[in-house]
């Protein structure tokens, strides 16, 4: 479920990085020094625990295959939403850096998909409500499974959206959703069961560990500010970056439009809301051409993308493509050559000057 760099486009990556960093800064500010003094060592250790716990495999009952813990929910239960979000951030960063599990540019996306939903949305709104103040085993189980399923569904859906907007993968929306959601339903259930097992154990052994959530907002008084701020930032930055991208790469956007609708440009319908909208956009947008294209593209994306085979494809002239292949091969060879020679030079220099 971790997104790789190879799948996203710069605007999507950048937008979600901004959103995630913003949320991180917000979370950091919510944790005052007095609380930080106590939480910092705990955050570090609990984050490491999530990693270490992933070493302990368990077998999933029906299938017999083995699985391991994801971590977002248990962290929120132990540390509260703000601290848990920061810990998820660093966990995902380490996974991206050292385990190639998710790209560095896609880190913003992954933090949002896997950290934002469980910590800021599902934990306060769902888990706490279902579990209540002094939960029984049954309530823990229900709360954990429901939370696990919901967090993963939301996260998976975001992956679909991000991949779609990036436009690198060929999977159309419908197929992608049908692929992602059921798989993550199963993963969510497992995550919920696993979280429940853990929480039950700790609740029985040392309940005070779980009451350690002084920073968590009580249900009903949940601040929607981080949620709204997150969305606003994503929207703003995505819009700005898409505009920039489109203005410098008109071919890319028109091309993706062509893919989804089969036409290079869409003629706007002359009646109804579109002329009004188009007129509005012309007045407010910096690039009226782009604004028009955006409006049509949005309309185009709603149309059935799946069945229509791409009619128009920017034709690549034969001459350019062969040259491309030849040139590409040569550049690769050159890169290897440069690498090897630099090494040899280095080695010779080291031998010469001991």
């Amino acid at each position, binding site marked *: 479920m971790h997104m790789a760099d190879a799948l*996203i486009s710069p605007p999507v990556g950048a937008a979600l990085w901004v959103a995630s960093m913003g949320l991180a800064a917000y979370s950091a500010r919510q944790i005052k020094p007095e609380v930080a003094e106590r939480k910092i060592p705990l955050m570090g*250790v609990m984050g490491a625990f999530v990693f270490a716990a992933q070493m302990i495999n368990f077998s999933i009952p029906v299938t017999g295959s083995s699985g391991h813990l994801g971590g977002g929910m248990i962290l929120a239960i132990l540390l509260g939403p703000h601290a848990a979000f920061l810990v998820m951030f660093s966990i995902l960063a*380490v996974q991206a850096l*050292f385990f190639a599990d998710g790209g560095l540019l896609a880190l913003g996306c992954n933090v949002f998909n896997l950290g934002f939903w469980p910590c800021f949305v599902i934990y306060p709104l769902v888990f706490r409500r279902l579990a209540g103040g002094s939960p029984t085993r049954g309530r823990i189980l229900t709360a954990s499974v429901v939370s696990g399923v919901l967090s993963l569904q939301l996260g998976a859906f975001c992956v679909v959206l991000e991949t779609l907007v990036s436009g*690198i*993968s*060929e*999977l159309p929306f419908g197929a992608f959703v049908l692929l992602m959601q059921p798989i993550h339903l199963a993963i969510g259930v497992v995550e919920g069961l*696993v979280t429940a*097992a853990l929480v039950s154990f700790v609740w029985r052994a040392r309940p005070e560990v779980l009451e350690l959530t002084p920073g968590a907002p009580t249900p009903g008084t949940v601040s929607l500010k981080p949620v709204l701020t997150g969305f606003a930032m994503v929207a703003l930055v995505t819009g700005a970056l898409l505009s920039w991208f489109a203005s410098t790469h008109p071919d890319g956007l028109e091309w993706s439009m062509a893919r989804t609708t089969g036409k290079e440009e869409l003629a706007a319908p002359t009646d109804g809301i579109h002329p009004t909208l188009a007129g509005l956009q012309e007045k407010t947008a910096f690039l009226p051409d782009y604004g028009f294209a955006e409006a049509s593209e949005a309309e185009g994306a709603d149309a059935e993308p799946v069945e229509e085979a791409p009619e128009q494809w920017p034709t690549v002239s034969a001459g350019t493509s062969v040259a491309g292949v030849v040139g590409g091969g040569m550049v690769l060879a050159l890169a290897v050559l440069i690498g090897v020679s630099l090494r040899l030079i280095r080695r010779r220099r080291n031998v010469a000057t001991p």
Partner: protein
Amino acid sequence: MMRLDAALGDVDALDRLAAGDSPVHRLDPRAKLIATAAFLVTAISYPKHDVAELTPLFLYPATLLAVGRVPTRVIGRYLLLACPFAVLVGAFNPLLDRQTALHVGPLAVSGGWLSFISILVRFVLTVSAVLLLLACTGYVAVCAAMARLGAPRLLVMQSLMLYRFIFILADEASRMVRAHSLRSLGKHSASIQTWGSLAGNLLLRAYDRGLRVHTAMLARGFDGTLHPVRGLRWSGRDTLFVVGSGGFLVVARYGHLAVRLGQWTMGMLA
């Protein structure tokens, strides 16, 4: 997802490499971070059917590899272990996009195959760039660079402590797994119930350790305020590196080097 215990050895290996010395190692971590970020953005900014156009980018990791004295096999191993992700991700493309995009001699290559190969190429480029960053800089210095570039201090401090504790806790977890397997007579994985006990115990031990560390921090005057990272010095060499990398990336991205080189070669041979 690589197994933690196997991967920790690699993590340590990368860490050791980062402690080495080379002109790349001596650059300010911020410069390397910025250059890597720029490289990543460039690598993923290509239109989706580009393959040949991506090749000039290989010069960047190749140079860093050589000048940074990073053994190729380290990078190679990682790429091998992680490539299932990329394959999985792009595997549908050839099936979905069968429109022929180009002819290489008698061979007709579909757009789907092109985009699939493009994904793989992007993957290799991006993963090796990140690994090289780590191998020449080290996790700790990268965190320091993030702090100086404006990341919240709490996030950075917490990331550093997490990294530190992973080794300790992984050790405890592996001992636990070993003890469990010695008494479970053949079954490899625990049931979810048993897992709950094992992981739960680990959690409580980790929690207690957290409390002890907290005590130790207090005993040394900690009061929750975090201090700014020191010791990073930006020099002219770093500016040169960033500007140079940026220039190279622009040329690689927009210069159509592969096509031009190919055409020139074919012209020469004709």
